């Protein structure tokens, strides 16, 4: 009888110990597999995304590339030419708007108030 009780108590203790060990292991296992799984997912998505993005770029023939190069140069040349043409005009605009006009306004104001 005593032996039976002893065996049962021992069994219960062993089971409880196993349970505690399982819980302890689980508590370690959870934070371990999660970051590993997330990291793996991130890598897969990053690689997949990069490959998809690169595949998404247009395939360009040498002729198309040459045309694009020509268009870039044409645009730059056009802007440069317009820039050269605007050079003197800008100076005139700036002088007229920022120097001549304010002076005229001051003079007019002064004359109106009879300060001159």
């Amino acid at each position, binding site marked *: 009888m005593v032996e039976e009780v002893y065996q049962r108590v021992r069994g219960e203790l062993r089971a409880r110990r196993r349970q505690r060990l399982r819980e302890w292991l689980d508590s370690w296992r959870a934070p371990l597999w*999660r*970051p590993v799984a*997330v990291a793996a*997912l*991130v890598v897969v*998505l*990053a690689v997949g*995304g990069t490959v*998809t*993005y690169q595949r*998404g*770029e*247009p395939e*360009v023939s*040498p*002729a*198309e*590339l*040459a*045309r*694009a*190069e*020509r*268009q*870039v*140069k*044409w*645009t*730059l*040349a*056009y*802007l*440069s*030419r*317009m*820039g*050269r*043409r*605007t050079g003197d*005009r*800008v100076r005139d*605009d700036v002088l007229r708007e920022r120097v001549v006009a304010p002076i005229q306004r001051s003079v007019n104001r002064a004359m109106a108030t009879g300060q001159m």
Partner: protein
Amino acid sequence: MRIYLCLLGLLIAQGTARAGEDIEKMPGYVAFDAYITVPTETETSIEVYLKAPLLRMVSAAIRREEPELAEMIDGISLIRVHGFSVAARELARVRKEIAALAASLEETGWERVARIREGDELIHVYLRIDGEKVTGLLMMGFEEADEAVFVNIVGDIDPAQIGRLGSKFNIAPLDSLRLDRESASTSARATVLESEE
């Protein structure tokens, strides 16, 4: 776990944003179509629309021979040019639309650097400046009395560099590019643009 999910979400969002590279949301982009109504029967003399991926390829192709130009192209996200003829009866309307666009630009932080009128030609030049960087350039107006032209450059721009580099190339009439587009041959290249160097 929530933190990991948030991180993952951020990564995916970043990846999607990079892949899309929404050019229309860049500060230097001007949606001039929203202001300018191109007449339906008009003849398009030039249409250029070069986005970053193609520009990067051009840059890579010319890097060895023209490193400075390649470096400049690296900073550009979009080159867009649209030129079209305007019938006499449409001129007043297009001029009004250009004026409305100019006013809108000035309201939204663009800086007018030039406005030139030479006879029938009227050209507006605007720069978008963010901090110390020029992030957008818009040139618009009438090249000839009946030829409206819009040029929008988006990206990291150095106007002085554009002027310097652009002056190296001879410019062909606007419609030469349209003809070229139909028969994109490399042999035509030399006749359209000749480097002065």
